[in-house]
């Protein structure tokens, strides 16, 4: 902060705009800026103005990072927990101020990580189901790449059905402008996942390609049908194929190690059990989300299989899956037991790197070290065309107010808990990626979109 405030003093002549001093650090004159730069500056100024308006005058300007959204009372959906913390904030205002200052200093190198942006409340007419979905996202009630994508598409179906084209406009031209603020609202709750991005891109394409002469209701029905098809083809059916392929790699007597919870991995393990394979599972888990507990619950409460008749003899139901639950620090002593590692993914980049829950890279690295094969289950709609080299360039932080079980964070002014949600597993640590088009080595990911014809879409 100190450095930022010194800068304008050094170059006072250049700041001709009326921007607040903290944001106009070192800007060249507007004429020498490109169009994009000018727009960026404008937006910065606008944001600063809003921030100034909404905050009591004593606060630091870039505060709203981790503090719960300072909402006006007309928003009744704000959970009561946040209300309580807000009132606490109000009482301890001076100490919190100091904490905020140091926090912004500590987090400065991580400040580009996506955090829920609690900007100005509802902007534009946001559909109620999007408002609800955004809350579910920001509270981590809906979490996971597949779940979020399905939930988003389902909500968009409602939005599309409730939409009427304004007069003198066409659906194919106008619907997207109606959807954009909804998407913006969802993104403000939690950064967009790659899966959502891919699905929305596909949806945009379908909208712009819809026939201009079609009656409105028919066009809307067709779009909803397209959304259903997308969910079915790219997620549901893809998962079934992946289950089938991954199950073939599970043999009797195997010990499967998995990390956190992935919906696909859960399905794979359950269906392998259903096929009567005798294997055991080690669930490795880690704070802050502790998603592995959910997986453990699902595996241990696998539906009881009744006695089966085979070759005229009654076979007893297979015993439940033997499971071990351990936290990440126990991994080195458990990895030697494992015969294979099966992981889920948030997204897969074209250099073969897997972006997944924080901790996955550690598990994959350790497995490689012990030459245990690592399988990553990932549908092709999670593929991203970009290249990622580390988990630092782009990531997301778990909002500290949701996962604060170390009670010190509010009392220790110099302590900031950093919980990146994802990390990047380099392709060299992965043996194979299980997709609906087969098992492929991570280095050949880039040849898949072509095979699926996604480039032409």
């Amino acid at each position: 902060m100190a450095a930022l405030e010194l800068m304008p003093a050094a170059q006072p002549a250049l700041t001709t705009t009326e921007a607040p001093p903290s944001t106009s650090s070192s800007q060249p004159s507007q004429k020498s800026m490109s169009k994009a730069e000018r727009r960026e500056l404008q937006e910065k100024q606008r944001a600063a103005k809003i921030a100034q308006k909404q905050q009591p005058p004593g606060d630091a300007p870039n505060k709203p990072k981790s503090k719960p959204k300072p909402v006006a009372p007309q928003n009744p959906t704000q959970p009561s927990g946040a209300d309580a913390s807000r009132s606490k904030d109000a009482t301890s205002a001076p100490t919190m101020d100091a904490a905020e200052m140091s926090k912004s200093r500590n987090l400065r190198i991580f400040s580009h990580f996506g955090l829920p942006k609690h900007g100005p409340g509802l902007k534009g007419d946001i559909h109620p189901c999007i408002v609800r979905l955004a809350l579910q996202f920001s509270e981590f009630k809906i979490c996971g790449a597949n779940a979020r994508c399905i939930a988003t598409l389902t909500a968009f179906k409602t939005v599309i059905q409730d939409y009427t084209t304004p007069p003198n406009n066409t659906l194919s031209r106008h619907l997207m402008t109606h959807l954009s603020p909804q998407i913006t609202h969802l993104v403000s709750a939690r950064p967009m996942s790659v899966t959502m991005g891919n699905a929305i891109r596909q949806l945009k394409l379908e909208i712009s390609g819809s026939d201009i002469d079609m009656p409105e209701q028919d066009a809307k029905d067709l779009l909803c049908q397209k959304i259903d098809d997308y969910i079915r083809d790219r997620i549901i059916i893809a998962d079934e194929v992946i289950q089938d392929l991954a199950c073939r790699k599970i043999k009797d007597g195997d010990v499967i190690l998995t990390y956190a919870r992935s919906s696909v991995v859960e399905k794979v393990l359950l269906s392998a059990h259903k096929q009567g394979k005798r294997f055991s599972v080690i669930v490795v888990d880690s704070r802050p989300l502790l998603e592995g507990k959910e997986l453990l619950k699902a595996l241990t409460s696998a539906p009881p299989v009744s006695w089966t008749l085979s070759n005229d003899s009654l076979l007893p139901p297979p015993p439940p899956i033997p499971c071990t639950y351990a936290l990440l620090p126990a991994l080195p002593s458990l990895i030697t037991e494992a015969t294979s590692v099966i992981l889920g993914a948030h997204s897969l980049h074209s250099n073969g790197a897997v972006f997944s829950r924080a901790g996955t890279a550690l598990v994959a690295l350790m497995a490689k070290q012990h030459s245990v094969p690592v399988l990553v289950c990932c549908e092709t709609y999670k593929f991203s065309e970009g290249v990622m080299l580390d988990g630092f360039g782009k990531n997301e932080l778990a909002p500290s107010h949701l996962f604060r079980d170390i009670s010190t964070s509010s009392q220790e002014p110099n302590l900031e808990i950093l919980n990146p949600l994802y990390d990047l597993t380099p392709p060299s640590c992965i043996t194979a990626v299980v997709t609906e088009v087969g098992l492929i080595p991570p280095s050949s990911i880039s040849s898949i979109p072509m095979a699926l014809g996604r480039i032409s879409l």
Partner: protein
Amino acid sequence: MNIWATYQRKLEDEQISPPLAAILSLVDLCATSTAGTMFELVKALNEGSDSLKQHSPNPISINAGCELFIAFVTLFPHDSASFSDLKMELVKQGETYVRQALTYRRKIGELAVDFIKDDSVILTHSYSRVVMETLLLAHRSKRISVFVTEARPRGLGVKTAQALTAAGIPCTVILDSAVAYAMDKVDLVLVGSEAVVESGGLINAVGSLNIAIIAKSSHKPFYALAESYKFHRLFPLSQYDLPSHNPRILSFPPPIEQDNILGHPSSAVGSEVPSSRITQEEIAKNNPDVDYTRPDLISLVFSDIGSLTPGGVSAYLVGMFAG
């Protein structure tokens, strides 16, 4: 018709490798089949390939050929007037393919020869037709000398050595266990293959993995030669994930004469005799025929579609089957 007998007969031809023999057997099956529809024909072909696989102790290379032919049949545009015409067309195409495939070795040899420098020492493993072709081709323009491993249990390295010596190439048979000893004298390793799999790895006569690991650690290039009909849609995760693996391999014999050791000679009746005599056949029985070489150990794969890195092989396979 007995497809296994047909397959055996086709294999008698020195030039025909197992995948091609499998394709030719399926072509014969196609010609004699009474199937009246595409569905019946594909069903008959699948049954034929299953029976081939069941008879063979090592189904991997047969599978590669069968898969290729069945994929070809199912994707073949059938616009001919009658189904028997279509079948004749398929038979013709199959035979043309095999005839063409026989020229692949020459093509591969021409690609690989450029990587062999004058006066180089080459290590090869067991016996491979495509390696022989390449070495003989290299011998015409370059001075080469060859180490060939004995390749137990089948001992095919001796066959290679005989053929090379007859052609005038200096050649020495080395023990499988002497590969590490010899590696420092070697300039490059050249091996054939049973199948090239989707990971870009290689399935070949047992011992190839040892050679690949030793070559990697001595920083010597390890080249594999494979005709494109050996490319196989398979992704082994480990040695025990291969279709050729069975519980008998690496199994332990039931323990004997425990009582003797414990000092109770009561039930040990002449048990000294079987334990002391372990025959070669017995050893071979508990050992694998093939092993899987990981892609990171392979420098290049020469094939009739070009010289590929292991990554390129998998990209080609993914593009061919996943499309």
